[in-house]
């Protein structure tokens, strides 16, 4: 037994070494640096919680977290809702040809967010597809350069988040709903349940695992979001679309405020951990 234990550690060793050196140690270093004032060149000075105090007083950084909340709605809540509506509509049917839909709907998951950003920049320009469509349906008066608009840039980029994630949610829930025992639906129907009660009592509980997975994946993507914002708006116009990850990049590499950048990174990481932990807990409790 003792020998077998030692063998187990041997199997773990190479993977854990790389993981330790290039994930855990840098993470600990982020926490450490968040207690220093450092410009990245000279010697840093210990400032205790000062960076966190500055974070709370920094309008741009605070707004970046507020924007992360907006992205959470667009990238996580809306796609999950869309997926659930579709799953509810589908729950009474067994459709054919789903494989083709699945392949297309899943596509945004495999393509680089930088490429997605380039495509959507073009969609949102003055004479891009979005405005062309608006003109086509007689809404030409609301057309604009969406990403340069202080009010509309944030929801415009948010909608790209929805576009990236709705397919994933739909594919997940469609797969889940096809696995629910059809006799459950028959029983519900014999009991006289309408579509809404059927959804609440059969479909929704049957999809609990899938919903938890969808929420976890989309939440992490929403909160860490860097690539998409960097490519489409780079946080602009002004600070209208900046998010925590863009602030980390700006503070850490453009403005030489490494301590504050790390404080933002710590808060962002804690936020992600808390949300994911809560989702997992909720999914387990209801089981």
């Amino acid at each position, binding site marked *: 037994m003792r020998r*077998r*234990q030692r063998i*187990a*550690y041997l*199997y*773990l060793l*190479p*993977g*854990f070494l*790389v*993981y330790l*050196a*290039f*994930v*855990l140690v*840098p993470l600990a*270093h*982020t926490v450490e*640096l968040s207690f220093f004032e450092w410009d990245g060149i000279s010697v840093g000075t210990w400032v205790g919680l000062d960076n966190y105090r500055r974070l709370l007083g920094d309008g741009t950084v605070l707004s970046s977290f507020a924007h992360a909340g907006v992205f959470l709605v667009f990238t996580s809540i809306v796609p999950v809702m869309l997926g659930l509506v579709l799953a509810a*509509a589908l729950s009474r*049917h067994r*459709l054919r040809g789903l*494989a083709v*839909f699945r392949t*297309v*709907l*899943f*596509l*945004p998951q*495999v*393509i*680089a967010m930088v*490429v*997605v*950003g*380039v*495509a959507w920049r*073009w*969609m949102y320009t003055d004479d891009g*597809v979005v*405005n*062309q469509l608006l003109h086509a349906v007689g809404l030409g008066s609301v057309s604009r350069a969406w990403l340069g608009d202080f009010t509309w840039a944030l929801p415009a980029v948010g909608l790209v988040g929805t*576009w990236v994630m709705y*397919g994933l949610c739909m*594919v*997940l829930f469609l*797969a*889940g709903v096809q696995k629910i025992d059809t006799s459950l639906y028959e029983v519900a129907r014999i009991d006289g349940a309408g579509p809404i009660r059927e959804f609440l009592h059969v479909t929704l509980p049957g999809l609990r*695992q899938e919903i938890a*997975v969808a929420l976890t994946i989309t939440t992490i993507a929403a909160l860490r979001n*860097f*690539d998409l914002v960097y490519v489409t708006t780079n946080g602009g116009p002004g600070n209208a679309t900046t998010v925590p*990850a863009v602030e980390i*990049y700006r503070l850490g*590499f453009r403005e030489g405020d490494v301590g504050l950048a*790390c404080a933002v*990174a710590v808060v*962002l*990481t804690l936020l*992600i951990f808390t949300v994911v932990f809560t989702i997992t807990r909720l999914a387990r409790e209801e089981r």
Partner: protein
Amino acid sequence: MSVRAERLVIYVILVMFCVAVLLPFVSILTVALQAPGSTVTGLALPDELHFDNFRRAWTVGGFGSLMASSAIVAVVVVPTATALSILAGYAFGTMRFRGSTGLFYLLLIGLVMPFEATVVPLYYDLRALHLTDTYWALILPQIGLSVAFGTFWMRAFFLSSPKSLLEAAQLDGASTWTALWRILLPTARPAVTTLATLFFLWSWNEFLLALVLIQDPDRRTAPAGLGLFVGERTVDVAGLSAGALIITLPVIVVYLFLQRGFIRGMLEGSVKG
């Protein structure tokens, strides 16, 4: 509404969502296929197909060499991360050892943590080690984070594989090493393929690390090159679109070849985990 009509409505809705997925890509494709210098709008089919923009992006825009850098990084990351994940997942899935719960929780951190959380110290620490502007600056952190997910993934596979298989191997006097490679792994092909595909996609598409850790244009990866291209030449939409499509092509090829097993593997794997 009759069942038939209901079904038709669902199909129409599904088709609309699929069209919406494809629209942005079709839009940049039509732009990239225009003759260079022509004024372009969102969705305008070109009179004839021009591939000049692709040629220009490949040579002038340097997407050829950008892709080469991305390929070098992926070629090291994918097999290494896959092998390390198999080994660690094997230990977690089939062996009992002290500290396994603690180590497992340590691993979960990497499952949730994004590179955004560590990119700042990574830059300053790797610079101190003179590793920035080398492929190692991308390879090592990518392996590190991939291994966290991969170990978790392979652990789930080994936990679900029949115990009798391993017991029979042990009775035959096979070492743990032989049991892994000769007996368990041949049954793991779908799980390993999905994992390797995921690692490839993550590595190929990774942007933040490549943007920060590599300044040398000769070692820059494709997404970072495209990201910087956006800043530099916003006017040249056609070239930009061509570049975006060029770097997407390998991903599409891999996806179309492996997508059936890939989507199924991902759905089952993530729901199980």
